[in-house]
């Protein structure tokens, strides 16, 4: 089931950026969506892809849905591998963008 490496696109970088800056707390899909402005149709496939390749872990929030009267949120967190791979992806992009800026 493991995917070698997810495609790095603008939206994936937005998601990774949000997760890196909130690495301590688990983030629900709605939190990421509000922060990045990504639509649900774009966000959830990205999260699923990252999860399948081991960059993300997800878990249910600690809540009894019956007592709370609402469904549980699924919280996403970067794994150690995900964090290092994300930083690598960002450094690749920055080096590319930096190169372009320097050329100008």
């Amino acid at each position: 089931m493991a995917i070698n490496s997810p495609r790095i696109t603008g939206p994936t970088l937005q998601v990774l950026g949000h997760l890196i800056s909130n690495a301590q707390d688990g983030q629900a899909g709605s939190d990421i969506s509000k922060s990045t402005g990504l639509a649900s149709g774009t966000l959830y496939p990205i999260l699923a892809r990252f999860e399948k390749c081991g960059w993300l872990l997800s878990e249910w929030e600690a809540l009894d849905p019956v007592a709370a009267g609402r469904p549980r949120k699924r919280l996403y967190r970067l794994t150690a591998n995900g964090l290092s791979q994300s930083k690598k992806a960002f450094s690749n992009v920055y080096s590319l963008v930096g190169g372009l800026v320097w050329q100008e």
Partner: protein
Amino acid sequence: MAGINGGGFLLAVLSKLAADEIKEWLPKLSSLIVRVAALRLPPHERDRYQEEWEADLLEYPGGIVRTMRALGFIVAAQRMQVDGMATRFGLCWNTAYLAFQTVRVMLWMELVIARVHLSKATRGRISAPEHVNVAEWTNSGRKRWPTVLKTVASLPLFLFRVTLNL
């Protein structure tokens, strides 16, 4: 003038009633859309995403916004299906997407063709000779068998679809 005012008042009342009705139905519609979207995923992932997406919707105020976001889950489910297909068959995403859409178009064409044949068979478009009983003609093998054969012929595609979980 009084008629116009009365008509305007009636229209306003009806609009208000319609708006209230829509407001009541939108949460149910969003929930239904989420269920439909989750059904497009592999069986072991359906419950998880249904609960996750229902919780997601609650974070947004307003029925229309929630409904629009719920519609996005259908797109998400489709993209996740394509991802699954790409992984399973070792395809690149674009190829998997093309294959996915091709199968979907083929399926819909099959459904439309099957529907047309069924419609022809039930309506009895082929006119019966005057000396033949129409009820017997409609039930005759001449009309029934092509429909049965076409339905059987479309089975492999349905099985293909089930195999790919499309």
